[in-house]
């Protein structure tokens, strides 16, 4: 078996004295939060119309109704908040799935969750005539939920080995994408909508979408962070975890609920954004070591950094047009991932 538990990474940090380690982790988290704030400010300031930072401050806290303030409040702010929330959701979902399946390759895409959302959205567009983004949300959510239950059941819920879970996910993915392609080919109007939804974009963010998905993301995020300790037990293997008194079935069920909430809401809000959920937990594990109680908060802070950063880059490179954030995350994430794999420690994970 080549897929090994992530618990072996980060033996380096384990050698430092415990108090130092905690201090270093807290400092790291604080620095990451600082970076996140800076990126969020940049996300509000940078775009087709650049806005100086002092005016950003003014627009946020002393709203006067000027053109700049309207741009900030109605366009940039919802977009930035959505990017933040979606980033948190994807990062946490990825970390939880990887811990749950003990598979460092698991991500929402590999498990077929995105395909479930795509299949539901394409059905909604083609058969029910839903055309607005706010209408897609519920369908995407439903699709994700159904597929997550299905894959987990087919993967053998209690005896889920990493390979079986991945095979079940790939099989569901293939079957559903066959369906999505069939609908797109028979109904070219649906294809026209889908090809823009599929790449994943924050551009159409508004307060309505934000209000629809925020509660799910927040509940899911709280649930995921609370699961840290139980997921640590999962990493030890089923038998050891049981011997330590951990209720594995409860942990698995709660994790699936958290992943569905996070991933479903994130995909519903801005389309399937690949790779954030896969790569951020890898980066974070290199920083914190295998302790899920630290991986989860770090992932929650660093994922939005990647997502908002990618969104800002997407707005800069083809100005005044934009590259969709899903395209940019993968452009950045793909090569970064390959670089990490080439490093010895990562490959032996």
């Amino acid at each position: 078996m080549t897929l090994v538990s992530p618990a072996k990474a980060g033996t380096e940090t384990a050698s430092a004295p415990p108090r130092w380690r905690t201090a270093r982790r807290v400092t790291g988290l604080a620095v990451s939060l600082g970076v996140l704030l800076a990126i969020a400010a940049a996300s509000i300031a940078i775009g087709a119309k650049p806005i100086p930072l002092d005016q950003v401050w003014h627009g946020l806290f002393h709203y006067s109704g000027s053109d700049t303030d309207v741009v900030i409040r109605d366009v940039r702010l919802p977009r930035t908040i959505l990017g933040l929330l979606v980033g948190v959701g994807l990062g946490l979902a990825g970390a939880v799935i990887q811990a749950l399946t003990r598979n460092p390759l698991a991500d929402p895409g590999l498990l077929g969750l995105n395909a479930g959302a795509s299949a539901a959205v394409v059905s909604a567009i083609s058969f029910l005539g839903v055309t607005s983004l706010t209408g897609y949300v519920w369908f995407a959510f439903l699709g994700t939920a159904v597929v997550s239950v299905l894959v987990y059941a087919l993967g053998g819920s209690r005896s889920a080995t990493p390979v079986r879970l991945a095979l079940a996910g790939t099989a569901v993915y293939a079957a559903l994408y066959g369906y999505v392609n069939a609908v797109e080919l028979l109904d070219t109007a649906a294809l026209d909508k889908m090809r823009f939804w599929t790449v994943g974009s924050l551009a159409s963010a508004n307060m309505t979408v934000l209000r629809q998905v925020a509660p799910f993301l927040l509940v899911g995020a709280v649930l995921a962070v609370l699961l840290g300790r139980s997921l640590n037990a999962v990493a030890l293997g089923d038998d050891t975890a049981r011997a330590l008194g951990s209720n594995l079935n409860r942990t698995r069920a709660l994790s699936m609920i958290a992943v569905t909430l996070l991933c479903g809401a994130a995909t519903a809000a801005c389309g399937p954004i690949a790779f954030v959920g896969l790569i951020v937990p890898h980066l974070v594990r290199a920083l914190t070591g295998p302790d899920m109680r630290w991986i989860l908060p770090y992932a929650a802070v660093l994922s939005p950094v990647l997502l908002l950063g990618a969104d800002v880059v997407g707005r800069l490179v083809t100005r005044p047009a934009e590259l969709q954030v899903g395209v940019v995350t993968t452009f950045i994430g793909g090569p970064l991932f390959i670089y990490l794999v080439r490093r010895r420690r990562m490959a032996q994970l």
Partner: protein
Amino acid sequence: MNASKRTAKSGTRGVTLRTAGLSLRLDVRGAVVGLLLIAVALVMSVVLIGTGDFPIAPADVVRTLLGNGTVAQDFIVNELRLPRVLVGLLVGAALGMGGAIFQSISRNPLGSPDVIGLGQGAAAGALTAIVLVKGDSNAVATGAVLGGVLTGLAVYALAWRQGVHGYRLVLVGIGTSATFTAVNGYLLTQARHEDAARAVMWLTGSLNGRDWDQVWPLLAVCAVLMPVVLGQAPNLRMLEMGDDSAYALGVRVERTRMVLMGAAVLLVASATAAAGPVAFVALVAPQLARRLTRSPGPNLLPAAWMGAALLVTADWAAQRAFGADQLPVGVLTGMLGGAYLLWLLVTERRAGRI
């Protein structure tokens, strides 16, 4: 590993054929499964040739293929439908064998060309030809072969670190695949409406309108590469035991791996050029073949037969279910293959064979 011990464990019966100085172990179950799959593929081919706007009875199809049909039947069978079916068989066999090689080398059932990014790389080449160059079908095929081969080289080079380790190959492949998926998604958003429809049709994988021009190059590639691959099959089997054991048994590990990967990349890229990246055949055919033969080896030939049977059956099902040439075959391979794999996973779990 002791051969008799292994066969006893996996529940198959092997027969050892011996002549002076040469012995060959014949896996009975594997051979029977292979013959059955060939029979299925041939029967489905005949049925598929008879299917369409102008239905022909299977007996007439066989008679026409043997050269005794009417003029009209002769034209329809030999000029219109036979090349399409041959492309289907060859593409299926090439994808099945290519997939079996990749899964064996990466020692991972997910290590198929789709996952490693060859499909996406070929698609990126073809999409560039469709969207940016607006080329004809020859340009698209060239773009697909170039894209696939370059991606294969890139993945191999990037995964190289004092030799290529299977796990690293899969990881690098996933990164490459994701990157090309982004490229393809971006190219699709940049396309005009009619180009986008054509691109999605190509991306799904289709056998519509294939003629002898597609058959000959593909047949040549298969005729050269498949014997090379089969010649290396015993070495591949030893490679599955790990690099060190294979070395000790006298296998030149890196050379074997390079030859086999090169052959697999070419097989998959030519198949993709002929029919588009038909989803999932390369991933599912070796898995299905392995479960049917219950043999632990790479199952190269059964995987090829399975791929051919799967593709022809899916094409027939697509035509029956949606009408002639309405939907391309790739739609059905994904749905059929995915459903079949799920069914196998469930029954295996129920039977306690995990």
